[in-house]
């Protein structure tokens, strides 16, 4: 690891100020720290976001639940369960206990790994990403593999989730990393169903409009029969071909619907 300065602000304002000089934000560090250990990143200055009380915790808001940007997955798995069990279950499947105790929701969606679990929940729930400067609808936030609408130095302070009537996440794990080879998040709201798929596409997390339409008409596994996704934009790597991923999108969506009940 290259040497670096570590800044540990206690307030959001101090964090924003510290990031103004081109420093790198550090949340749970579950992607950034291994990258630095391999000397593939040399950020110079890290600004830790985990010691800022206003970025922590799960609470009920006017229109759903609000999760602080630096809230670890394990806390979401535990504390969101009574409000939004589908989301809590997803958080409880990320990585392993060590990852869940360090990794945070803000860190995950700021990184926007195409195989990460959280983007599926955020997009599939139609959540709102709150930053230090604005609010961004999930549909406008995820811009492709490792790309988001965040500006330089912008911090995810919270994510606001509307709570659906039913929701579930079905994850097909990549056998080495246990990231999602394909993960499908389905959420049934009063005004329709949202389906978000992670792990599969070269463009990162995406919604599946045909499945949403079919499930909005009938929230049953059978409603998905005959629906397929083209393999063209799917990720192909040593863990799965594009065709296999495209196939698994259908299977995992069906299983998510079955799990949602």
């Amino acid at each position: 690891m290259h040497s670096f300065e570590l800044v540990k602000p206690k307030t959001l304002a101090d964090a924003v100020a510290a990031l103004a000089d081109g420093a790198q934000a550090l949340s749970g560090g579950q992607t950034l720290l291994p990258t630095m250990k391999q000397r593939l990143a040399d950020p110079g200055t890290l600004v830790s976001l985990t010691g800022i009380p206003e970025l922590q915790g799960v609470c009920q808001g006017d229109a759903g639940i609000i999760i602080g940007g630096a809230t670890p997955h394990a806390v979401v798995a535990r504390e969101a369960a009574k409000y939004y069990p589908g989301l809590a279950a997803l958080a409880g499947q990320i990585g392993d206990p060590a990852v869940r105790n360090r990794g945070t929701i803000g860190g995950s969606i700021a990184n926007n790994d195409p195989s990460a679990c959280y983007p599926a929940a955020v997009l599939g729930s139609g959540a709102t990403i709150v930053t230090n400067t604005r609010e961004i609808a999930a549909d406008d936030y995820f811009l492709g593999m490792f790309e988001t609408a965040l500006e330089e130095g912008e911090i995810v302070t919270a994510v606001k989730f509307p709570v659906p009537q039913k929701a579930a996440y079905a994850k097909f794990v990549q056998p080495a990393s246990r990231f999602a080879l394909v993960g499908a998040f389905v959420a049934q709201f009063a005004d329709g169903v949202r389906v978000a798929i992670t792990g599969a596409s070269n463009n990162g997390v995406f919604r599946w409009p045909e499945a949403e339409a079919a499930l909005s008409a009938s929230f049953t596994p059978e409603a998905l029969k005959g629906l397929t996704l083209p393999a063209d934009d799917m990720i192909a790597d040593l863990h799965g071909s594009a065709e296999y991923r495209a196939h698994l999108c259908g299977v995992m969506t069906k299983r998510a619907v079955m799990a949602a009940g």
Partner: protein
Amino acid sequence: MDGSVRNALQNSSWMGRAMPRREDDRLLRGQGVFVDDLQAPDCVFLEVLRSPYPAGRITALDVTEASGMDGVIAIYTAADITPQADSAVNALLPGAELAAMEPLARTHVRAAGQAVAAIIATSRDRARDAAEAIWLEVEGEPAPTRARTQAHWGQTLPAFDNPVRASIAHALVAPFAMEPRAVFAMPEGTGLTVWLSTQTPQRGRDDLCAMLGLDRDQLRVIAPDVGGAFGGKASLMPEDYLTAFAALTLQRPVKWAATRSDEFLAATQGRGASSHAEMAVDATGRATGLRAEFTFPLGHWMPYSALAPVRNAGRILPGPYTIPCDVTAAAETTEGAAVNIYRGAGRPEAAMILERLMDRAAQRLGIDPMDMRRRNVTTRLAAQPDTPCSGDFPGLLDRLEQETGYRALRAAQSQRRAQGVVCGLGLALYVEPCGQGLETASLRLCEDGRFLAITGSSAQGQGRETAMAQIVAQALNLHPQQITVSHGDTALAPEGIGALASRSTAIGGAAMWRAASGLLDRAATLCAPLLGCAPADVVTSAEGVCGGGNSLGWADLAAHLGADPLVVHIRHEAAAEAWASGAILAEVVIDPETGVLTIERMTWVDDAGIVINPVLVQGQLLGGAAQGIGAATMERMVYADGQLQTGSLMDYALPRATDMPPIHLFSQPTPSPANPLGVKGVGEAGCIGIPAAILNAVMDALPQGTPDLTLPLTSEKLWRALTGSLQ
């Protein structure tokens, strides 16, 4: 066995007892001491610059800037090191071409990850900073083949009439010890003391001595706690030489410890062979001929034991069966990390192709696979080299059938299939030859009345100390706690082989047994006049010796003997090779929508000979099974255009605790005539039999006519096999 040993045996029953491992208390409390835990005040650190480029010609290598960086003590390139000899390669096959280690690439890089420069600095980070400042250019050129070898076993058989055929492509896999390799070299007199994470301390010493130009008495190798090896720490590696060379040249302590990335890029790999075989069968289900061809990749250089898998695969066919054989195995260097022995080392490759052929023949003839094997197993063992020393193969099958309720399982399988369940049963019958040659042991009565047992075998987590103490306690009618077991230090055991090939209990244990028997005889001779009885009437116990109504404590005896202590050294040459064996049934289901494989249950009847300690045997079997499951279902090293694609655990899949199926173990021993204890090895069994059983179960589950699948059996492959879209 003389009379006194027989008496002792009647009085003690330490052998066969399920004792907890004496090593665990210390290791589980974090009190283990591994090479990288060792410190010295003026220690400096070695790091290796590895070529990021695949094979090619070095057109630029400039260390000028790096040499001037803070904390940098020295930077070596190939021009700066002076090996006094080529690294040793065991020429196990006649006429074998050898390709020795290049500790640092000279004119050409032969594979990505090959060491190009060694940087010694006051800290690891400074050494790594300097490594990044070295300027290296490589112009891509195809890697020439450095060495080829081919060997033949059995007889040349004529063409077969309508044989069954099978082909297998094994993936390259990582031996993956939990503790990465490490070496710590300290100048000592005119030579060195080298702490090495190794399974072969004596060979490490000999190979280092040759390359450094030192005499044997100038170099001491110590293997402290070693966190797994599996063949990956059996042969001298470039970093071992470079670290020792640096310590000798700089005359200060130098340490190198591999990162996980180093291990993926440059540690030895295992497997990787492809095999094609055909077997002739008559209408009664008798196999009348077996022709097999293996091709092994060697990587870009050959560690000491590189040819052992080739030889093992060739020599052990037809395994537990009686079939005329015509076996060819070839090996050649390839671009990539060196390929060497890995737990099983050729035995898994032989077992898998043979067990596939048995199932193919059974299917063609409409015979149950269990019966197919019964018709072909060896029932009369010949005392010949490269054939099983003992074993009751029909008995293994009978026991497996009984413990699994095999007939009922087959019936249930038909019903499940009718309900759309994709399920399969897979058998494997395997043999495990457990090593040849010598091992040493010495046993001493110490001044305090305790015993010191020094074994030439080494330990990497097997529970060696526990087993050796039980052997000595059994022979001398002592309590195991009275015995200190020492290993892994060439100053204490100048001669020995180490832990390889499942040999340590069969050969090392036999050596220790002989040492204990010899000590008992000497004690009887020495004590008879002191006790006033005949030597044959001297009896030993935890307290000491007694006879003729008199007794003498062990410490008193030691004091009496004074400067001429009771000590026995044994150099034991195994008269024959012990062969373990076993039979396994794997029960699997495949998710037809995703291809995900679930192993519902494994049932395993093993013949490891006389068991010293069932706890240790179970540990070896289950650990090997985990690695066997990994090799069959998920592990693979993948290169693309010469670059490693599986350079971390994000891409290299290892089995975890949750991947382990229920495994039911049953012990059905037949004593080995190859050693006085009747013991056999058990270390490699899981890697040999388990993958073959899994592959057979998967093929049983898949539609008839499914082409041969390559390893590992990933979910996508199984999904494609089920949907008829195999690529």
